[in-house]
């Protein structure tokens, strides 16, 4: 009873009004701290193969002997084909596939993004499992050019040798599709899109032919990336790439299978995100985690496997790294064993995790452990929004002294009753002034609609004008809040309502996004975190400081910084082109989240800060 009476009395306490920003700050700190805790042993787990049917590394692999001679010949042949024009190269590959007894077909595709055209042809063949019933299929991928635009000589040659070798076995319960796309990103994308549709009507940005030959439901895909030339190159370890488009991940069992076969059966070390030396220390784990967050938040393709994952086809890329003593036969045996394991599957991969963060090749954090970080971060916006909403309904006279300490003047008091409890509170604290919602709501809607202009610019300008478009967007973005604040004179209450609505929307969107692409929600949440703390202030010094912090964390500035830090060599234009390709061809949400969610929230934050200047001038 006494407690509830105290709580009632707290209603008018200045402490309550001041609390939300501190709560928000606490949320941000907890969110960051949470991520830093994840690499610890207590919060992560050893990976394990969950699906019993996989039996990784339980079969003897026979790939070797005369297959090695054939591989060398195929590698020479692939090299010879690489010296020939595109048509002859495809015909040559098709002939090798047909001679090995595969059903073959090819699919041309073309994308048109930012004035640049991407053309290519997917060449593929199907090993029809002699005892399979055509209902399921698995894919062996070897892109002609790997993700770094090198010709994948050994990878393609190995895939051809394996296809020839696989076609002699009668154990396959699923068909094996050997796919050789021209490039590593758009070829697989075009193929998998066409595989899952009857026909794709050509649009201005893409023109994909239908597949003349199909097999059953795709179960898994494994891509080989081994660009060693015709005289070979031994490798030291396998880098396993697993990120799909928009941060979707393959089933952890597929990754575990590859890791346990490569390291357990064949003795090949496995790495993630090119971390060649991993001492399993906290620092190394954290850096793999950070790389994982970075690639997942970008959501762009990281290899030929990426395109498959949105279609619920689990896929990974095995990429050879370094200079060591493992040769192509070891990679061939790993691939053979992985395919034997996938072949064992009775059901689609479903048993293990789809949401995880990897710390090294055999340690992961499951969704229950990491999701709260992004949720708490999104909660910081919601908390601030609720605080602002309450403040916006309070009288100026009351709130102003509260903000600067207890009022000295006599305050009219009123008793509040709840059941049997009574409390004495300032009268004005229980009164609500009418909130003027129309202008803030309209402004918020308008800013959100405006967000589509930079989105459109960044995705449809030509390659040459993209950078100019960004400069322009930056300039307009920086001026827009001030001009909005000067043209639309917001009252204190309206400014608070505007910020409250904007933050509540941001919090809800980020919380939703966290369930789809955790990393993107986390990164945007961190970058946007100042928005929860900026306030309308009559102090010009405080306003200037807030404006500066907002300018530093603005979306366009983040793009510049990102380019400087991560792609110093590539140039801004290249980065913007890749982002535009991601949106137009791969369907990555990143740009929409940046310009459609973050940018409007940022502009609203700027308007709120700017309106402080106006009020001071008044």
């Amino acid at each position, binding site marked *: 009873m006494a407690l509830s009476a105290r709580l009632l009395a707290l209603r008018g306490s200045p402490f309550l009004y001041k609390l939300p920003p501190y709560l928000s700050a606490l949320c941000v700190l907890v969110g960051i701290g949470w991520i830093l805790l994840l690499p610890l042993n207590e919060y992560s787990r050893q990976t394990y193969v969950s699906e019993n049917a996989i039996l990784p590394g339980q079969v003897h692999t026979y790939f070797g002997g005369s297959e090695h001679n054939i591989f060398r010949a195929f590698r020479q042949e692939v090299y010879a084909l690489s010296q020939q024009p595109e048509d002859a190269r495809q015909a040559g590959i098709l002939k090798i596939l047909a001679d090995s007894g595969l059903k073959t077909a090819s699919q041309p595709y073309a994308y048109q993004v930012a004035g640049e055209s991407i053309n290519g042809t997917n060449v593929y063949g199907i090993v029809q499992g002699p005892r399979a019933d055509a209902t399921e299929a698995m894919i062996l991928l070897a892109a002609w050019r790997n993700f770094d635009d090198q010709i994948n000589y050994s990878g393609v040659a190995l895939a051809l040798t394996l296809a020839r070798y696989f076609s002699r076995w009668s154990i396959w319960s699923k068909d094996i599709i050997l796919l050789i796309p021209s490039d590593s990103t758009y070829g697989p994308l075009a193929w998998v899109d066409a595989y899952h549709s009857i026909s794709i009507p050509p649009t201005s940005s893409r023109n994909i032919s239908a597949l003349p030959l*199909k097999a059953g439901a795709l179960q898994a895909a494994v891509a080989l990336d081994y660009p060693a030339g015709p005289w070979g190159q031994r490798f030291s370890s396998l880098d396993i790439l697993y990120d799909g488009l928009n941060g979707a991940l393959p089933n952890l069992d597929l990754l575990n299978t590859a890791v346990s076969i490569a390291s357990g059966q064949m003795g090949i070390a496995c790495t993630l995100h090119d971390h060649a030396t991993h001492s399993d220390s906290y620092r190394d784990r954290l850096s793999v985690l950070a790389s994982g967050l970075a690639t997942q938040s970008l959501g762009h393709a990281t290899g030929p496997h990426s395109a498959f994952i949105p279609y619920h086809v689990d896929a990974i890329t095995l990429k050879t790294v370094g200079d060591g003593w493992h040769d192509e036969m070891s990679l061939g045996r790993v691939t053979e064993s992985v395919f034997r394991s996938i072949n064992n599957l009775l059901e689609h991969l479903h048993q293990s995790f789809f949401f995880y963060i990897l710390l090294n090749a055999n340690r992961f954090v499951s969704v229950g452990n990491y999701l709260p970080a992004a949720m708490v971060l999104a909660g910081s916006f919601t908390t601030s929004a609720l605080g602002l909403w309450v403040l916006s309904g309070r009288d100026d006279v009351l709130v102003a002294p509260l903000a600067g300490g207890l009022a000295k003047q006599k305050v009219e008091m009123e008793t509040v009753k709840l059941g049997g409890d009574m409390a004495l509170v300032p009268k004005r604290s229980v009164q609500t002034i009418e909130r003027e919602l129309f202008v803030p709501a309209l402004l918020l809607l308008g800013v959100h609609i405006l967000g589509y202009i930079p989105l459109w610019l960044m995705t449809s300008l030509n390659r040459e004008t993209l950078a100019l478009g960004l400069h322009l967007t930056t300039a307009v973005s920086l001026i827009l809040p001030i001009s909005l604040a000067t043209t639309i004179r917001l009252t204190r209450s309206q400014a608070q309502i505007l910020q409250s609505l904007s933050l509540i929307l941001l919090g809800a969107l980020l919380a939703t996004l966290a369930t789809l692409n955790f990393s993107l929600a986390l990164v945007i949440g961190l970058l946007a975190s100042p928005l929860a703390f900026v306030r309308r202030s009559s102090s010009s010094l405080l306003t200037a400081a807030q404006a500066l912090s907002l300018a530093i964390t603005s979306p366009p500035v983040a793009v510049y910084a990102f380019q400087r830090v991560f792609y110093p060599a590539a140039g801004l234009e290249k980065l913007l082109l890749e982002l535009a390709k991601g949106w137009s061809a791969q369907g990555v949400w990143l740009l929409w989240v940046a310009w459609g969610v973050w940018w409007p929230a940022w502009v609203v934050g700027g308007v709120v800060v700017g309106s402080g200047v106006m009020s001071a001038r008044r």
Partner: protein
Amino acid sequence: MHLSALLSLPASLAFLTFTLASASPHSYTEHLHLLPLPQSHLHAHFNFTATTPLSAYESSHFRYFPRSLAQILQHTRTKELHLRFTTGRWDDEAWGARPLDGTREGGTGVELWAWVDGEGSTTVAKERWSELVNSLSGLFCASLNFIDSTKTVRPVRTFEPEGHHGNAKGGLQLLHGMLPHEVVCTENLTPFLKLLPCKGKAGISTLLDGHKLFDATWQSMAIDVRPVCEGKAGEECVLEIQQSVSMALSIPRSMRERHDPIPRPARIEDVECDESKPWNGHDTCFPKALTGEPAWTLSKVFGHAAKGACDLERDDQAFDVTLEVPSDRPVNATGASELTFPSTTRRHYRLSASSSFDLSLPAHSTPLGQNSPPSPPLYATRQIAGHGQERGSMHTTLRNPHAHPLTLVYMETLPWYQRPYMHTLRLANGKQEKMYYTPALDRKRGTHLELVLTIPAESTATLTYDFEKAVLRYTEYPPDANRGFDVAPAVIRILANNESPQFAGSYVRTTSLLLSLPTPDFSMPYNVIILTSTVIALGFGSLFNLLTRSFVLAEEVPPSPLAGVVRRMRDLVKGLLGKNGDVAKDEESSEVKDGKTAEISRYMREETKGKANGIANGDADLRDRRARGSP
């Protein structure tokens, strides 16, 4: 050359049947047809035919006809039966037309259709069909009993009876069912061989070995029972059973040693290298493409030679094995006498009862393009497109490679949980003549769709429609729920039209499909969540009840305004009753229902029970109590 050869295959079978039927009403004959296919494959067609006169059949007198099957047929009044066990795919791109025009094969898994005498009633026919599938299920160790009403359809145009049913034809009903998920295996072969008079111990049936048969790229076991009347006046009709096994074996795979079937990489000396490549060397070998046909022997391909002969009743001209190779090819046959017929492409062998029969053919390089196989009537593929858990679309392509249009019946049966949107049905590049459509009923009946189509010459027709995936009850999922659900293949029958008589009656089947449905997570954590949620809901519910409900004595309850109204109404009725006396019994009982206390309603219930004994007595008692109860 090959076209004529393959087309004459059914003719030779018909010839066999004819000779047997005329020789004796009880007859048995067996025949193996071997035909090398392109891409190092071998097609083997085993045929075992037994007949019995209908009168003997009716009086349960059997010689070669299997008694176990005959009793089932008699009991279920099945007049014609077709049962198929099929695995693998016939590669019609490489091998051409299907053996026997596809009339002795089924879709992947098990397919069964039969004409049952329903005595004019659909219900009776269904009951007999159900008995038939259940009995056959036991006889063939297959899950045929899963062909329930949801998997049974009644095709209209796709199947015609093969036998002669005379006047009885009108009363017969055709029922058809498919089990695409059924895995055909040795356990189905053993009962199949048991039906033969020689039980797989002598004759060509000794070649049927599970290891080799089920390693085939494509195989189909068929049982066809039909009545045959040759039409000669006064001659009795016979009941004929044809058991056939048709398979396409990969010669290199079948030739592997039985004790070591692992396809290890060949020794480098055994790999034929293409020496024209500049980099050819001691460690680099570009394999030459295989052309022609490798050497093979019957005993290695089938695991062992044929032992003896199943010599039951036959004339001297009958032959057991036909090998279809050009006459200039050397063939070495042991343990059999070769019969000479005027044919350039066929060799006929007659097995001897005492020795084992073997054939061996040396490797043969056929120049490419010389013996292209006869083209099939139609190329058909069927796929499920789309992704996600909610909707999908079906996509069928039918390619007519010939210079004349084809008329065909396209039949598909869909499980009830795949709900087609018929308004989205589109046929591109073809003409739809007729449609027979039975919509699905949830959990009772699947969709049955038959279309009569005409496909123009040298063109590809595509048939598409969208469908919705139903959400199943969680008990309806099979143990391997995440695999998906098998959808039966489509059956295509080519109809006779004026321009393409040679394909009339051919059958083509597509492959079966896998349909993924929205599947709940059946994992252990899921079960734990369900269980704990239930427990918490129960516990919370009762605890919440206890905590939030205030318990008071009945006297403390303030009178509700409604109770006042009810009381006033009652008093009113009572007052009326008092005036009218005790005539209105019905009114009285309804009044009692409105009674305030539980006691009275309990008495009333006792009373209604007691009415059987003595109404007047009970009523009096009730009135008595009511009088006491009311103030």
